């Protein structure tokens, strides 16, 4: 065995994987070549340091349970997805109590409608968006996928959706989630963002042509006119929710949030949708 052949076997020797036939030749060469022997020993020592100093760790309980929880939210086996998107704030007893009461009220109406969730009975897209924002806040509108990565949510929502879905990488966004629905054959996309410190931002999306035709869902004429002229439309509800409509490629987007309008527009305008 020469030095080159010896070097090729060093790693296997360190990991005790040398074949019987090679073991003796390896050992013979190490005994007559101090330089090769040293190379072998240095690699052996390195492995010894790694094994002795870096230990296999058990997954921390909080990580383990957080992962399980997020998987179960993703599996939609529980309606408690709000805990995930609200994070620690939702653990506040006062917030939790109010939310639970709201969910309870929602649950009663849910039972009355035999598993159908009455998010909105309005044809007007703006009213639908506001109602859906409330449903997202109370937990009735549940994203079927929640992720840190907007790309994941976009991929998920884009499957079989005949228009461009917009899921932006928003500054300060902790989570985003999405869910699909259909009404009379019209595909609707719902995206929910949890913006740290600002709460929930809900974005309703539908095919622009469908919205303009107005056969099944639609917009008031004055809204269409403003949108066509400026590319944006703003409205504020009596309880101070801001509604922003804009066009993204062939998609009409309607965002609803309690955020200040300027902040909302800056956030939505500043980011290139994925």
């Amino acid at each position, binding site marked *: 065995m020469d030095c080159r052949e010896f070097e090729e076997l*060093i*790693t*296997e020797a*360190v*990991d005790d994987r040398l074949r019987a036939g090679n073991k003796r030749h390896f050992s013979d060469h190490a005994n007559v070549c*101090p*330089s090769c022997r*040293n190379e072998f*020993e*240095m*690699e*052996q*020592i*390195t*492995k010894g*340091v*790694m*094994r002795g*100093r*870096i*230990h*296999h*760790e058990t*997954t*921390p309980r909080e*990580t383990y349970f*957080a*992962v*399980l929880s*997020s*998987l179960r939210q*993703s*599996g*939609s*086996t529980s309606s408690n997805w709000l805990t995930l998107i609200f994070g620690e704030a939702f653990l506040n007893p006062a917030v939790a109590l109010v939310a639970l009461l709201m969910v309870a009220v929602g649950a009663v109406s849910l039972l009355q409608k035999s598993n159908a*969730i*009455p*998010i*909105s*009975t309005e*044809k007007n897209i703006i009213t639908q968006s506001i109602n*859906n924002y409330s*449903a997202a806040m109370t937990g009735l*509108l*549940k994203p*079927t*996928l*929640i*992720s*840190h*990565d907007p790309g*994941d949510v976009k991929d*998920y929502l884009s499957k079989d959706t005949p228009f461009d879905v917009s899921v932006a990488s928003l500054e300060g966004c902790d989570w985003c989630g999405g*869910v*699909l*629905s*259909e009404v*009379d054959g019209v595909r609707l996309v719902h995206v929910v963002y949890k913006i740290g410190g600002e709460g929930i931002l809900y974005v309703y999306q539908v095919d622009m042509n469908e919205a303009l035709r107005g056969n*099944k*869902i639609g917009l008031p004429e004055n809204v269409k006119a403003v949108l066509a002229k400026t590319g944006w439309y703003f409205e504020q509800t009596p309880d101070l929710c801001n509604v922003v409509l804009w066009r993204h490629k062939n998609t009409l987007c309607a965002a609803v949030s309690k955020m200040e309008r300027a902040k909302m527009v800056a956030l939505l305008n500043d980011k290139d949708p994925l």
Partner: protein
Amino acid sequence: MFAFSLAITNPMKGLHKEFEKEVIPHTDILYNYALRMTGNADDAHDLLQETFLKAYRFWDKYEKGTNVRAWLFRIMKNTYINVYRKAIKEPDTVDYNDIQNFYNIIREDSADANDLQEKLFGHLLDDDVTKALESLPEEFRTVVILCDIEELTYEEIAEFVECPVGTVRSRLHRGRKLLYSKLFEYAKKRGFVGKD
């Protein structure tokens, strides 16, 4: 009156229990890999969570009966590369002859491998060892973690990183050599080994 109901259905409903049964037993090995790659518990937590969510989403793409651990590992590795990887600067140039010469000198005093290890690196802090590992380029670090810490076989590592066993072996050799140089450098800086 126009009414619509929002269908809250998950396309993967029903597979959830099966998914958990297959995937959860591999949490620890994935967490450890995430921890060694990202270098901190918070990022490891996030990386693990992202990995499982992606795996759940693509569960229908997983080929039943194949190595689920390797499949999960590849999802984690790709997520790490896309989201968490920081550019690792080229390792500092170390005079390898210097290292060999020093080893030769202390080798003359002792032939016992444990004693040599203690003399060379016994005074290093655990943090130095962790930093040395983190300084390795990703492809070398991965095989060192999987072989030396997680004690996987070459064959399983090859399946994880999707390369031949021979490549695993050569990456291990190169990775350990770089690691030795890095450990030597730390020991030298701390004055535990001779400064020429």
